[in-house]
């Protein structure tokens, strides 16, 4: 993947989560937002790769939070490490 696009996807994702006031954001809301800001919109492969990389244990930039509304719902929150990294991008 184009490294500039890759960085833009990760940055946009972290920025979106930063606006959530510390709450976790469901993918149903998060993905359309990232898609709207990046042209062309993300493929599923790009989305999954970004989520996997940001949430990987060694990086810990975002974390999955279980949902009481629906156990199958995936939702993500930015971590302190994620905020710190975002400030440097």
């Amino acid at each position: 993947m184009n490294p500039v696009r890759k960085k833009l996807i990760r940055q946009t994702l972290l920025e979106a989560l930063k606006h959530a006031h510390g709450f976790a954001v469901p993918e149903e809301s998060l993905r359309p937002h990232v898609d709207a800001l990046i042209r062309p919109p993300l493929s599923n492969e790009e989305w999954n790769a970004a989520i996997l990389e940001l949430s990987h244990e060694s990086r810990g930039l975002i974390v999955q939070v279980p949902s009481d509304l629906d156990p199958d719902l995936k939702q993500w929150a930015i971590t302190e490490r994620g905020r710190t990294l975002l400030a440097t991008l």
Partner: protein
Amino acid sequence: MSQDKEIRSDAKLKNLSAEALEDLWRFRNPEEGGEKLTLEAIAVEIPLRWGFTVSLSTLSEFYSWLRLKRRMDSAAERAQQARLELAKDPSITPEDLERVAQTVFTAESIEAGNIKGYVSLAKLRLQAEKHELERAKLAAADKSKIEAGLDALFAEIQGNPRALKLFAELKEVVSKA
């Protein structure tokens, strides 16, 4: 180079004051009776008010960003209200408070169309739980009937060691069922 310029003007828009962001939102989402401005008109207005230029594509992306930001701000506000309301109840633990606030935020941040789907899903889940509870009650009632039958049988076979041995095995099977 043009991409760098776009990123800079996008960042300038996002970093405007809350009042300026509200003005920009109202340009596209006027209150009743107000005039909705086109992106072209807003692109002309921005340099006059805030001193920098933006392309139409940057402006279009900015409004997508602003829509999500406002939805998240609103969801967080509702979640905070729920948190404050529940905090009045001393029996609610801090962990439960956070869980409820997160659930409110999740529900509020999902598009209205999707909420209907989640409500339907939640209803189905409640129905499934109810059916499971009823099934468990019926099974418990059946087990009581069997146990009552066993008690009667036990009274009948007193004094018959072979029958008592078989009875003990049968009772073990029933207790594990």
